[in-house]
């Protein structure tokens, strides 16, 4: 199996997200960075599949040079090939991102052979456009289903389960296929010491590719209005229990 996973480097904010004064980006001066959670699970899924069936996992990101950190992390949990398409810090719209990824996939497949499976996150954690994977799959002429929380790879097809409120919808896609994965499909492993060492040595290909902008233009980011409310303190120990139960009775959740 040759599997490609597309990941995005995103800031990891804490209690609130601050925006730069020009409103163009998240203020990241005091923040760490991470991979979008759905994509972290996509990476884990790809590694598990190749552990079971053999094969290779390639991880691709379109982002700033610093996104190497997210690629190395993927290598530390078992991915084999790392590809970075540098963007010089530009924020790309979804159409442009998808076009860049499509072209990159074309190049990678011409050099190394086709991917049996390409995994995306269901949506990116920051901009959440819900579309880059679908656009890439369509451009490649491959089927895609989003919201996937279960994958079984069979000889000539892939069974994908999508979580709905009370259960699953089951899809059956011919190979090669593309899937948008959701967190919860697995529990991503933590890197081992051996994995960390291997990730330092992993080769990273940096491949500049660009594409046209689409039609969506971001004007500015801002925080939603917050209603500030006074927190009522009910106590500072288990002695608050009667006050809590009074509250539960008052709002009618205690029958």
């Amino acid at each position, binding site marked *: 199996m040759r599997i490609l996973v597309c990941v995005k480097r995103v800031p990891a*904010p*804490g*209690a609130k997200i601050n925006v730069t004064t020009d409103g163009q980006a998240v203020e990241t001066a005091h923040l760490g960075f991470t991979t979008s959670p*759905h994509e972290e699970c996509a990476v884990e899924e790809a590694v598990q599949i190749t552990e079971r069936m053999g094969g290779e996992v390639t991880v691709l990101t379109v982002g700033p040079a610093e996104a190497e950190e997210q690629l190395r992390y993927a290598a530390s949990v078992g991915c084999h090939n790392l590809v970075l398409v540098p963007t010089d810090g530009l924020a790309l719209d979804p159409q442009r991102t998808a076009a860049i990824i499509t072209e990159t996939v074309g190049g990678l497949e011409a050099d190394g052979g086709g991917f049996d499976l390409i995994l995306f996150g269901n949506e990116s954690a920051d901009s959440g456009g819900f579309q880059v994977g679908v656009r890439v799959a*369509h451009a490649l002429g491959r*089927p895609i*289903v989003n919201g996937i929380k279960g994958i079984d790879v069979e000889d000539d097809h892939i069974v994908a389960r999508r979580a709905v409120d009370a259960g699953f919808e089951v899809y059956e896609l011919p190979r090669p296929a593309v899937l948008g994965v959701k967190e*919860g499909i697995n529990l991503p492993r933590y890197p081992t010491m051996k994995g960390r060492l291997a990730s330092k040595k992993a080769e990273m290909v940096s491949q500049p590719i660009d594409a046209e902008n689409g039609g969506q*233009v971001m004007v500015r980011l801002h925080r939603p209005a917050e209603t500030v409310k006074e927190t009522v303190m009910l106590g500072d120990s288990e002695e608050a229990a009667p006050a809590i*139960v009074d509250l539960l009775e008052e709002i009618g959740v205690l029958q």
Partner: protein
Amino acid sequence: MTLLVILEHDRGDLAEASREAMTAGRSLAEQMGDDLHAVLIGEGADHLTDEAAELGAQTVHVVTHDILTDYGPDAWAESVRQLADEIDAAAVLAVGTDRGNEVMAQLAARTDLPFVANCVSVDASDDEGWSMTRLQWGGSLLEDSTIEAERKLVSIGHHAVVASDALAPGAGTVEEFEPELDGSHAVTIIKDRAVLSQGVTLSTAPVVVSGGRGVGSADGFGILEELADLLSGRVGCSRAVTNNGWRPHADQVGQTGTRIAPEIYIATGISGAIQHWVGAMASKRILAINTDPEANMVAKADYAVIGDLHKIVPAVTAEIKRRKGST
């Protein structure tokens, strides 16, 4: 010109979320000065036309084709694409559910047009370019955007508008439409279903008792389960907990977990990171139990107790049992 709204249904039951799409669609159509059309796709959809009219549809397109049995993103999007061309739709709108956003993305990919997902407000008064505010970070942040496109493709964030029927129903003229589809569009149609749970789910539970890293272990959740059971509620958790393997992901509240809206959310040992908060903020009331008076969860809660959850939660359970025993 027309505004076309995609209605979702599950084998003939109109999705509640689609009522939101129509509510948003009515005000958009008014701004645009265009007619509001709705599209229903697949088996079981034909008897939903009256409901679509109640929601304001002037025309309801019923799309049928041999391969349109159950839901499939390709078949649905390709149908909508052909219909939108046929009626020369100025814009296509859906609600930002899993299916809504998926069909819109497919439609956008097929037409190479921009698609703006999860809008909370849209200014459509200028038909050259629209401006909108949309959700980023699962709602923790807002983005003002503009698009210029010959056909605008937009989804409205789920729960961003309160659904209502039209003051005056639309004419609801029914028109049949049979798209040209072939086997390639059937590849992604649902093959099978599995039902896992029945009854209250985390998203509908009236009480949610959640634990975070402060619970300390999988076993630590025993006291939260006992309290949740007494309140006919459900146990929730933070991502720190699922990442540690203490609870299944189905219990996770937040941006990449479940959005909850209980009468009361009891959040214990949870610091209240923004990605957790967006999943909990629709709760009617929040009670935070935390050792740290500075925790964001405490600051944002309606009620708080500062202290050790391992002592406070069992004390609450004991107090409930005592009162129940004495009545």
